């Protein structure tokens, strides 16, 4: 219970700070919108091509965008040596990881809730009828992204080139996740039977379990000096 209480305190603190400043959220939404907007131009007027690539474009935009939020979440902790303060509390390192993960997850999910409708409008996709299924695919995909991103952003916090290192490490590690979430989204957007998305859901579930567990086990060693 102590671990959960402390994890929730960290997540609440992060979300409160985000609510006050809205720095990450605003930047992430604007950046994701900009990427989707530019992609829509890159394909010209070829509606068939846009539809075929739309799920991949959506998730690429969200993954690029999530890097902004993950980096900002660590930046807060580096200001005023807050990360040192956090690590000096008599809290299990797992609580710190889980708290940061929950905070990052909430912010990315909120960004998705804004970006999905914008995506539907920009790419002329009938999202509304498929929204529950899309959310079912998006949730495990976002959990995996936040899990790996939280670990890597904490790991690279002490590096001078952390802004460059985070995407450099994050993108290759999340390839299986990106593949699964893009394929799952494709199934949903094409209106195919949801059974076809189940293997991708299983892959994302396995990815999430493996990376959350590995992160909980290794976080302590990665943040120690």
């Amino acid at each position: 219970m102590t671990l959960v209480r402390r994890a929730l305190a960290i997540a609440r603190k992060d979300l409160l700070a985000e609510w006050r400043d809205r720095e990450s959220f605003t930047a992430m939404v604007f950046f994701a919108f900009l990427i989707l907007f530019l992609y829509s131009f890159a394909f010209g007027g070829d509606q068939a091509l846009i539809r075929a690539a739309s799920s991949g474009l959506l998730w690429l935009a969200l993954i690029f965008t999530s890097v902004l939020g993950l980096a900002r979440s660590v930046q807060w902790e580096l200001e005023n040596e807050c990360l040192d303060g956090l690590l000096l509390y008599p809290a299990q390192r797992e609580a710190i990881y889980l708290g940061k993960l929950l905070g990052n997850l909430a912010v990315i999910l909120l960004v998705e809730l804004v970006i999905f409708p914008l995506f539907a409008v920009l790419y002329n996709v009938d999202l509304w009828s498929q929204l529950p299924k899309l959310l079912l695919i998006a949730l495990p995909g976002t959990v995996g992204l936040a899990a790996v991103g939280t670990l890597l952003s904490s790991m690279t916090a002490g590096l001078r080139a952390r802004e460059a290192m985070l995407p450099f490490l994050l993108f290759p590690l999340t390839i299986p996740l990106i593949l699964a979430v893009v394929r799952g989204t494709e199934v949903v957007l094409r209106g195919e039977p949801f059974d076809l998305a189940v293997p991708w859901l299983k892959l994302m579930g396995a990815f999430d379990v493996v990376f959350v567990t590995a992160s909980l086990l290794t976080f302590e060693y990665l943040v120690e000096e």
Partner: protein
Amino acid sequence: MPEQAPVIDTRGLVKWYGANPALRGIDLCVAAGEILVLFGPNGSGKTTLLKILSGRVRPTGGTARVAGRDVGADGNGTRGLIGTLGHGHQLYEALSARENLTFAATMLGVDRPRERISTALVRTGLEAVAEARVRTFSSGMKRRLALAKLMLREPKVILLDEPYAGLDVEATKVLEEYLFASKAAGAAAVLATHNLTKGFAVADRLAILGRGRLVFESRRDETSVEALRDLFALHGEAQETA
């Protein structure tokens, strides 16, 4: 000197940052109810020593024990016994003073947090600005709030790194009252500072670190501020010409 078993006990403590030695074999004991003040020039290893004692940094060699627990092996257990005040104020600027203290109280597992927070805010003179965001505070007010965070509980070990920096006369008095009250309650304290006069005034024992080694150690009544100043200048010069 108090007769109790040492609360802080380091043996042959060594720390390297890459190829640079920060500590080169520190043997140090601090008993319950004792205040040890560490002096030393910049880069002498004071902050590294405090970081090892707090469990924030792992030593390269030697052992550090706090209340009988190995800091390296039982970091979480020892962190629960320690209160720290470091260089940075470790406060979240987007949150208010009260929100910062509430977060700290939850993380520290403080009993009766509301009462403790209110008391700490009153004692540090921040009650009137408790709901204001830390971003709007002056650096002195931030130091006071960091002090309020330390005062949320009574740890067995208190580690203070340059605690006087940015504190005005009133806040310094509050800090020293807290320090003496903790000492009376049996806490051991290590205070690292460049302020010879203030450090000398609160110390039971004094030590000078120079280039990662303990180069001088004495009870307060066996030395003077002037003697310390001479020694400090000598080791500061040695550091700069090394």
